[in-house]
């Protein structure tokens, strides 16, 4: 019988994932590819916002999209209709993507002819925030009908994101959604958070968000 050993690890269970993510980011930098991780709850308008952004930037960058969902491919079909390279990633019941799955997705998509890859993460404000995907920047969408208290309820996602897109501002008159409150709550958790109020439907505010993304991609791939 072999002797029982105790191995002290004392490490976060996310440490391996974080290292893998860091390695992906380094590789993206070397290959001059920008990866954006887009997160939100279901129904916030991720796909519609994405289509608008693709339309605005597709003449400047070669864009690819990875659609992550637990099941189905309805979103991937909508994105593919814009003419950009798209793949669907099924997480097989899991509520988030991790660095390993993202890397597999990037291989599957084939990034050699791309400048900008957008990962549409699983619709969820909790789990995707905990797993670094290796993306260069993280963005999230909060839509007006969801309410302005979300930064208080789901603080982590507001902390890990670089950008908060507030979508569906065209319906602001019908909801008790306080734009100033959301700013205050979100920036209390993350003072560097950039906030873009938009309506993907009417196009209002989309230019500011698209300009921000354009600048980030150019800075990274230079």
């Amino acid at each position: 019988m072999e002797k029982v050993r105790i191995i002290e690890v004392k490490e976060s269970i996310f440490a391996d994932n974080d290292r893998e993510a860091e390695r992906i980011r380094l590789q993206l930098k070397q290959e001059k590819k920008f990866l954006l991780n887009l997160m939100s709850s279901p129904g916030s308008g991720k796909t519609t916002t994405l289509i608008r952004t693709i339309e605005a930037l597709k003449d400047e960058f070669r864009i690819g999209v990875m659609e992550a969902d637990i099941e189905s491919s309805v979103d991937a079909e909508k994105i593919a209709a814009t003419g950009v390279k798209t793949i669907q990633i099924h997480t097989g019941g899991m509520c988030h993507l991790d660095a390993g799955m993202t890397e597999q997705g990037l291989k599957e998509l084939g990034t050699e002819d791309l400048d900008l890859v957008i990962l549409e993460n699983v619709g969820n404000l909790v789990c995707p925030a905990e797993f670094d995907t290796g993306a260069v920047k993280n963005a999230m969408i909060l839509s007006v009908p969801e309410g302005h208290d979300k930064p208080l309820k789901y603080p982590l996602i507001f902390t890990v994101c670089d950008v908060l897109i507030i979508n569906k501002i065209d319906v602001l008159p019908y909801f008790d959604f306080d734009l100033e409150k959301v700013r205050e709550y979100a920036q209390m958790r993350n003072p560097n958070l950039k906030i873009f109020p938009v309506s993907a439907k009417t196009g209002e505010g989309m230019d500011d968000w698209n300009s921000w993304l354009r600048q980030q991609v150019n800075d990274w791939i230079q």
Partner: protein
Amino acid sequence: MHELGIVFHIIKTIERIGDENKLIKVSEVTLELGEVSGVIPNELCDCWNWAVKKTERMKNAKLLIEKIPALTFCESCKETYATVQYGRICPFCRSEMTYLVQGSEINLKEIKAC
């Protein structure tokens, strides 16, 4: 669902450590779990018991959980207080300038193996 993803990450990490240390059988894994980590211990154990059966090295490994209480620090009055009881607003001075000092951890503490 969230717990299952976390279990897969723990297993992956232990497999790596197992390879590095040439471990044959893992009998016990100790996890430090923060009070506000968002992980439900019971569900984590259920997922663990299901997932380890699929591995050779951890088939019968027990999962032990040590809880870490959540503590928040107030920047205004420099007091530390229990997060779950009082939330984000400091019970001493009512300030909102507070941050979590511990309690969100999900740490792999140690592995017992041969």
